[in-house]
């Protein structure tokens, strides 16, 4: 697991700062421009207007700031770099993120960080249903609440929730670790509460610090897989 540190200001050359106004440019022009970008550049996107597929497929060490609300699949297929959304994000935020960071200062709709393999997704507000569905190594920190069926079939990575979790948290979970500070409406199949040991407090503190949060790790509970379902046993057939 990658050790996380508090976020530092990206090494950005201010002379290379570029603004793309989506009232004047198309989403395709924006995405092509940031695909051609070089490490260290800073990009600002204005007037996003909830458009879909903003800042997707970034493959360079750049910082992209979206000033406003983003639509579906913002920062999807994120390979590298840092994306900040000064607003809300629609369905499928940072879907399949591989590394780097994606930070939403508002709320995110459903399926945030779905299938993410790595990197860090921070949502300051609430996340909708299915947050971290099928997560495969991504770390997710949510400042508010998460909706139902979050971390469904989660395979690896860590999900931190500073508010409450909706129904069926961690249903059919494999090996991800889930930390929730507030209440859990219900746990999904094969997801159980587990002891919060020293190593968990340590990694939780790292994750919270990386997300710029000051919550006390000791106030969280840990949830994970009971490992009863993921090796098929005919005796469990009614539980699937």
């Amino acid at each position: 697991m990658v050790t996380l540190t508090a976020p530092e200001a990206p090494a950005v050359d201010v002379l290379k700062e570029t603004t793309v106004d989506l009232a004047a440019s198309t989403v395709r022009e924006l995405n092509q421009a940031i695909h051609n970008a070089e490490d260290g550049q800073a990009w600002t996107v204005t007037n996003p207007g909830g458009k879909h597929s903003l800042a997707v497929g970034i493959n360079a060490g750049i910082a992209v700031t979206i000033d406003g609300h983003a639509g579906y699949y913002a920062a999807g297929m994120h390979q590298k770099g840092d994306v900040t959304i000064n607003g809300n994000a629609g369905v499928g935020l940072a879907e399949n993120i591989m590394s780097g960071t994606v930070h939403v200062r508002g709320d995110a709709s459903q399926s945030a960080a779905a299938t993410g393999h790595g990197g860090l997704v921070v949502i300051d507000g609430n996340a909708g249903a299915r947050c971290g569905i099928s997560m495969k190594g991504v770390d997710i920190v949510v400042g508010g609440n998460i909706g139902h069926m979050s971390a469904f079939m989660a395979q690896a990575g860590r999900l931190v929730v500073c508010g409450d979790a909706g129904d069926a948290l961690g249903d059919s979970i494999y090996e991800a670790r889930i930390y929730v500070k507030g209440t859990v409406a219900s746990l999904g199949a094969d997801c159980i509460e587990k002891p919060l040991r020293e190593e968990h407090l340590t990694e939780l503190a790292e994750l919270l610090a990386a997300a710029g949060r000051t919550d006390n790790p000791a106030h969280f509970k840990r949830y994970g897989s009971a490992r009863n379902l993921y090796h098929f046993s005919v005796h469990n057939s009614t539980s699937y």
Partner: protein
Amino acid sequence: MCGIAALQLRNPSLHPRMGSLLSSMLCQIVDRGPDSAGLAVYNTPGLVSAGTSTLSLLGKDQGMTTAAITAGVAALLPSDAAAAAKVVGDTTLVSAAVGTDLLVKAVSEILPGSTIIGRGGHVAVMKSVGHPMEIAAEHGLEAMAGSQGLSHTRMATESAVTAGGSHPFSVADDLCLVHNGSFSNHATVRRGLKREGVVFDSENDTEVGARYVASRLKQGDTLEEALVNLGRVLDGFYTLVVTTADSMAVVRDPIACKPAIIAETDDYVAMASEYRALAGLPGINNARIFEPEPGKVYTWSL
């Protein structure tokens, strides 16, 4: 996939802009359902007027002139009913200063083949097949004033692409319902309602939802209670918006498969399938923006 955009104006000074605001919202949800569309507008001058009932009929061509429709309907109604018929876009509107039931009876006699797609004292309903923005332009949405507006762009799944299958479904006075999703047990619920004497216009699943809500309201449910009951009886995926003469409701199925986002300010409540439809509304940067919780009924009254 379908698109929904709905607007309830709390500040009367925005009423003159209802059509242009709804049109700007509709423009952003076209991609979600480009095959057909429908509109419902409330208290729009020129379409409805106080003290009269208005019926919205599907299609501009009813097989006779508006003058002939007016004369035919007037002959069946009291002499002071001031019956009038006009064509707006692809919709025929018939109005008279009588109760809705009486007007329905008269219109059904004069135009037995017509489909009534809207009824009441406050609402006009317009729907057609084709590109939603062309349908809106044909009906002159941009210039319409009003207190509430509801629009829907359809990507048909449960029944054919026809004007009659377009939303909104308006099956009781001033009641409209639009739906993104699909009801899986609509045939069963339809059979139950038919046994109770409810008559259907189409094979559409959403019409079952609308007829069910109308049936519950008739039995004394509040709008909120009717939608809670709908959640108990109808199975499937749905985000629904329901409007009445002075209120608007939003509900999503308990799994929340279909999107919805709401923006609320002192001046309006707006609901859309996606935020981009709300992005152009006045004061949106200071609006309270949230996604409705699964299975929870939200209502707002003017």
